[in-house]
Structure formats: structure tokens, C-alpha cells
């Protein structure tokens, strides 16, 4: 564990010059460099995972088996999920945290710069291992990203060990990232930056980091048990040896439910930064936002079995998990109402980050409502494992997490590159994404309610028309994302010079440094009013 004094690093670089070429990126301990690496890596993963989604949608375009074998289809759904969760959404948030948290709290860098370098550079190897397993004899993981036992133990193929190791590496990377964020926020705040003065993005990330530290080790334990069950004759999840396959689901979802909040709390933070800027008002109910975030995080530990209503739980258990789950909509509702109240009577303008944020608020709320429907135990027996679930979690993860990341990227891009992005192109990206994402995911609610199961390569012909529409939406959404790459590329290359404040209503320390943000910021802490 490195606790190297970061000033020593800075001096070394000042005196000898930063290494150039690839070595600059391999050896960098600068939070901005590492933030950029995380963001670019997550963009790459977004397209790889998206490519897999395209394979899935191409196969489901028509009923019957056309393009891929069922086993390969299952590998696609599995690896698509793993890549999007651990490769696209989480690294994107870590990248944003790396870039913005030190600047927002007036710190010169992350507290543990060398560990920061490590936590990024082990990630590409994790995904290399995972992706290479697809090309092995017998294929890659095909048991779904939730890797339920006994699918992942008794019935899995030989590449399962690679899956386990890659998840271990992803976990270690996330844990190191989380430790770094916590230590940075606890120890490197500028004098006068009290906890209740921290920007909300910093707050939500602090809470997310605690969630990561609490549950990523549990995931590591779960994959280790799968590994020993499969290769070393243990019986954690095998009834024949005294274990219990249902216990796998308990352990997995004890990790899995806090995990979904890990993927949404930083999104709440981003939206809470953007909405006040373009409403030209202070965030409504700052402290209630902080407490709501903390309550969501705490509640996330006592709702895991709502993923398991159909496993034969006793009624008392079902009711407990149903009510706890519904309770979460209270703090979430507080947040949504606070955003709306922030916009209320503000002088709104609709720049691209704001458009993505408003789309986030509306569409995430739809995802929240379908989540509430799924929480109702008796109804869940019908919805369980149907496309309704797929629709629900894509609304909260794509139009939730991904839209917030897009919003954040557009919001801070001028600060990172020093140039304004091509607003026309960005607006085209927004509108195409908004329309296509709804064509893609909204009909899934209907086919789900009509009984189409998830994770299948073929389906009853009654679902054919809806699936064709969904697939067209999917291709359109996938292609629209290329526009995002074009906007980012153009913005790095040049454009209209951005001012320091970039956006008229923007407030906060990150807007007080020049655009582009210099390599080192706040080497002497700023004064906090």
C-alpha cells in the first residue's frame, strides 16, 4: 500500500519532466491522467459490451435461431452484463471521481497516487482474461452475470476459473479505488471545506466508496466459493455435500443489491451538480439530499432477498423484504422532488448536460416505478425472470447511470479539454439517444408482462413484432453512441475556447481553476468562504 508523499512525485516530474509516450500513461500517478484513463477505458468497454448487445438484439430480431448458437447467446448475455457493470459503468464513475473529487474539495491529488495507478492498470488485464475466455474451447461464462450455482459450478464450462479470477481482479481494483476516495475525502479537504459544505458528487461518492468496501469483498468470497466448489470438491452450494444452492443467491444478492446502488448513487451526485447550474439556483434541500443518500445506502443492505421471492421464502420473509424495498422509494423520492424543486422557478437553460439530466430524472423515475412494481411480492411471481425485469434494470442503468455519465461528461468536458464541444452534434446525440433508448426498452415492459422470459435466444411468435421494434431501437441506440465519440474527439482536438467557469451558473472549486485544468491544481489549498 503506497502512502508516498505526493509532493515528492510532483517535484520529480517538475525536475525531470514527465515521461513521454506510453510510459507517461503507464507510470502516471496524476489524478487527472488516471481519471482520463478510466474514462477512456470505460468508453471502450461500453462499445465492446454494446457490441454484444447488438449480437443479442440481432438474434432476437426474429423468432427462431438465426445467427448464433444458444450457448453462444448465453455467453453474450453473461459477458454483456459483466462488462457493462464492471467495465463500463463502475470505471466511468471512478474516472469521474478521480478527475473531479480532488478538484471539488481543493486537494492537490488523490491521497494514494501510486495505488491509484495500480487500481487502474490491473483493470485491462481483468477484462482481457474475461474476453479471452470467450475464445477458449467450450466458450466463456454462460451462466448469466449473476452466476447462480449450480449453473456456475456443476454445469459450467472449463473457463469458469478465468471468470473467477477476472472478477477477483475487478474487485481488487474497485476496493483500491474506494479506499483512495475515502482517504482523499477524509484527509485532503481544503481548510474550511467541512463535510456539510462538500459538493453532492463528493458526498455520494464517499457513501458509494463505503458500499464498495463493504460488499466487494463479499463478492470475492462468493466467486471463491464457486471456484472451490467447481475445482476443489467443496460443497458450499451443493446439496449433495450438505450445502445449499439457495444460499448462493443470498450471498450473491447481499453483494448484488448494494452493488446496484453503487451504480446509481454517483449518478445522483452528478445530477445534483448539474441541475443547480442550469437552473441558476442553489440545490434545493442540500442536507436532505445527503441524508437521503445515506439512508438509501443503509437500506440497501436489508433488501437483497427481493431478488429471490420465488425461491420459496416464508411469508414473513417475503413481507419483510417487500416493505423494506418499498421504504427505499421514500429517500429516492426525496431526491427526485429536490431536483424538481431546484428547477422550480429557476431561470432554466437547456444545454446538453441539462438535457441529459432532465431525461435522467424522468426516465430514472420510470425505472424506479417499475422497480416498485417488482417489489410487490405477489406481483413479482408473474414478473420474475421476464423481460419486465430487463426493462426495469435497463431503465435505471442505461437511462439512469449511463445518461448521468453522459451528462457528467458533457458538463465537465470543456474543463478537461479547454474547448467547448460541438453543441449541434451533442444535441443530435442526445435526441437520437433519447428516442432510440425508449424504442429499445419501453416495449420490453409489454413483452415482459405478456410473459416473455429473459435470457433466451428464441421466443414464441406472438412476441415477434415487439422484438423487431426493440431490436431496431437497439441498433439505433448503439449507432447513436458513435456520435458521442465524435463529439469527444472533436472537443479534444479543438474548438471554441472554454472560459474558466464554462457554464454561466456553475459554482464550485472546479470552476475556479483555468480551462483546461492545469496538470496540478490546488497545490496550495484554496480559501473556502
Amino acid at each position, binding site marked *: 500500500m503506497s*502512502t508516498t508523499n505526493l509532493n515528492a512525485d510532483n517535484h520529480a516530474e517538475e525536475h525531470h519532466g514527465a515521461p513521454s509516450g506510453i510510459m507517461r500513461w503507464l507510470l502516471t500517478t496524476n489524478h487527472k491522467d488516471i481519471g482520463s484513463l478510466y474514462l477512456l477505458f470505460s468508453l471502450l468497454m461500453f462499445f465492446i459490451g454494446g457490441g454484444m448487445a447488438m449480437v443479442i438484439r440481432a438474434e432476437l430480431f426474429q423468432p427462431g435461431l438465426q445467427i448464433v448458437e444458444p450457448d453462444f447467446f448465453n455467453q453474450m448475455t453473461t459477458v454483456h452484463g459483466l462488462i457493462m457493470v464492471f467495465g463500463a459503468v463502475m470505471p466511468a464513475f471512478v474516472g469521474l471521481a478521480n478527475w473531479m473529487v480532488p478538484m471539488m474539495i481543493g486537494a492537490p491529488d488523490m491521497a494514494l497516487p501510486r495505488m491509484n495507478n495500480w487500481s487502474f492498470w490491473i483493470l485491462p488485464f481483468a477484462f482481457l482474461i474475461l474476453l479471452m475466455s470467450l475464445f477458449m474451447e467450450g466458450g466463456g461464462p454462460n451462466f448469466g452475470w449473476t452466476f447462480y450455482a449450480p449453473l456456475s459450478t456443476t454445469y459450467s464450462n472449463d473457463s469458469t476459473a478465468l471468470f473467477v479470477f477476472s472478477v477477483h481482479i475487478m474487485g481488487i481494483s474497485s476496493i483500491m479505488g474506494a479506499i483512495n476516495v475515502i*482517504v482523499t475525502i477524509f484527509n485532503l479537504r481544503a481548510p474550511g471545506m467541512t463535510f456539510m459544505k462538500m459538493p453532492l458528487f463528493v458526498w455520494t461518492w464517499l457513501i458509494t466508496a463505503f458500499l464498495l468496501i463493504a460488499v466487494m469483498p463479499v463478492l470475492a468470497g462468493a466467486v471463491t466459493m464457486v471456484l472451490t466448489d467447481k475445482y476443489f470438491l467443496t460443497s458450499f452450494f451443493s446439496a449433495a455435500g450438505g450445502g445449499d444452492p*439457495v444460499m448462493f443467491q443470498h450471498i450473491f444478492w*447481499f453483494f448484488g443489491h448494494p452493488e446496484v446502488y453503487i451504480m446509481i448513487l454517483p449518478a445522483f451526485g452528478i445530477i445534483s451538480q448539474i441541475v443547480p447550474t442550469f437552473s441558476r439556483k442553489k440545490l434545493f434541500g442540500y442536507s436532505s439530499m445527503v441524508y437521503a443518500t445515506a439512508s438509501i445506502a443503509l437500506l440497501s443492505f436489508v433488501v437483497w432477498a427481493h431478488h429471490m421471492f420465488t425461491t420459496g421464502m416464508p411469508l414473513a420473509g417475503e413481507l419483510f423484504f417487500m416493505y423494506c424495498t418499498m421504504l427505499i422509494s421514500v429517500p429516492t423520492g426525496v431526491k427526485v422532488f429536490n431536483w424538481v424543486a431546484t428547477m422550480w422557478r429557476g431561470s432554466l437553460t437547456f444545454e446538453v448536460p441539462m438535457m441529459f439530466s432532465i431525461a435522467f430524472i424522468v426516465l430514472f423515475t420510470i425505472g424506479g416505478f417499475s422497480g416498485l412494481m417488482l417489489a410487490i411480492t405477489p406481483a413479482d411471481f408473474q414478473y420474475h425472470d421476464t423481460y419486465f425485469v430487463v426493462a426495469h434494470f435497463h431503465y435505471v442503468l442505461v437511462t439512469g447511470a449511463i445518461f448521468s455519465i453522459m451528462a457528467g461528461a458533457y458538463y465537465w468536458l470543456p474543463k478537461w479539454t479547454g474547448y467547448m464541444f460541438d453543441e449541434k452534434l451533442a444535441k443530435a446525440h442526445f435526441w437520437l439517444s433519447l428516442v432510440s433508448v425508449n424504442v429499445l426498452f419501453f416495449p420490453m415492459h409489454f413483452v415482459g408482462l405478456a410473459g416473455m422470459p429473459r435470457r433466451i435466444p428464441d421466443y414464441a411468435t406472438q412476441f415477434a413484432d415487439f422484438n423487431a421494434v426493440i431490436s431496431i431501437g437497439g441498433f439505433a441506440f448503439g449507432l447513436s453512441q458513435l456520435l458521442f465519440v465524435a463529439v469527444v474527439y472533436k472537443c479534444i482536438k479543438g474548438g471554441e475556447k472554454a472560459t474558466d467557469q464554462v457554464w454561466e451558473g456553475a459554482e464550485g472549486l472546479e470552476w475556479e481553476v483555468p480551462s483546461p485544468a492545469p496538470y496540478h491544481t490546488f497545490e496550495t489549498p484554496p480559501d473556502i468562504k
Partner: protein
Amino acid sequence: MTDKQTAQQDTKKLVKKLVLTVFFMFGFGFALVPLYDVFCDITGLNGKTSNVAAVQSDSVDKTRTISVEFIARTQGNLPWIFKPEVKKMNVHPGEMHQLNFLVKNNSVDNMVVQAVPSVSPGIAAAYFNKIECFCFNQQPLEQGQAADLGLQFYIDKDIPPEYTTVTLSYTLFDISKNIEQDEFTKLFADNKN
């Protein structure tokens, strides 16, 4: 001490705590395994019967009759025959009963199996006392070999009155590949004696 040194010490302390938390949570993940069993044991939730032989019952409650149903099934594609002698018995709480389950290994290999019991409704599992059960042991059977596996049980007198029917289900798992080779041969050698 300068400010920088104190800051570094704070960092070290916090990192240490966080790393400890990580290890603690990793351990907690594994602790969930015994905790899960303890929780099920206390609440009687998942229909697991005790895998320890019970003591004999000393008296019989003739005022009540409980119908006990037996289900036997094989897991996966196990080419075995496995069925109870009788499908249903009417018993008085406290009254001892015995029955056999018939098994036959129809495969071409010597195999070892393990029967896993489950009682429905789950809460009744705690009142299902087995004095002797083939599920306490692993069962080796040579190819084509058949056997009668015995079960001796009684229903506890304290069983709440709302339980009038109790179903005992056995699932037969093939564990041949899950045990060491010498243990495998030893099981068959013991079986012959």
C-alpha cells in the same frame, strides 16, 4: 510535527482501518455460510431435517393422526431407480415406524450417491425425528446392483396441531466425482463386508 507529517499519519491510520474492513467483510462473506445454517436452524425455515439420529420416542399420542407422504426422486440424469415402499402412511405422533426405499443402479458404472431429505411444510422438519436413515451415509452401489435402504422415524408429539400432513422428500445426488478415489474404493470394500 509538521502538518504534512500528521496528514500522512492520518492517511496511514485510515488506510489501515479500511484495509481491515475489507478483510473483515471478506471473512463475513464466508461467515454467512454457517450463519445461514444457524438462521435456518433457529427459525426452522428451509425444511432441513437433522442429520443426527434421534432418540427413541417413549410414548404415543393416540388422539391424533398425521398423514406422512414420501417422495423419492433422482437429481439430473441419474440413471437410478429410487422409490419408497409405500407412498403414504398414517401415523400417531410418537409412534415408531419403519419403511424401506428401493434403489437400483441402472448405470454401467459403480456409483456413490447421497440422499438429501427435505420436509414440507418447512416448520414441521423440526418435529420429524429419524432414528435411522440411509441419508445419514453415502450409499455405494455397483452397476446393476439393487438395495433396500431403511428409514426409521417418528413424528414428535409436540408437533403443532395445524400440521395434519407432512411430506418427506428425498433427492438422490450422484457424488461419485466429488469424493476422493481411495475413499471411493473403500466405500465399496466396506459395502462387500
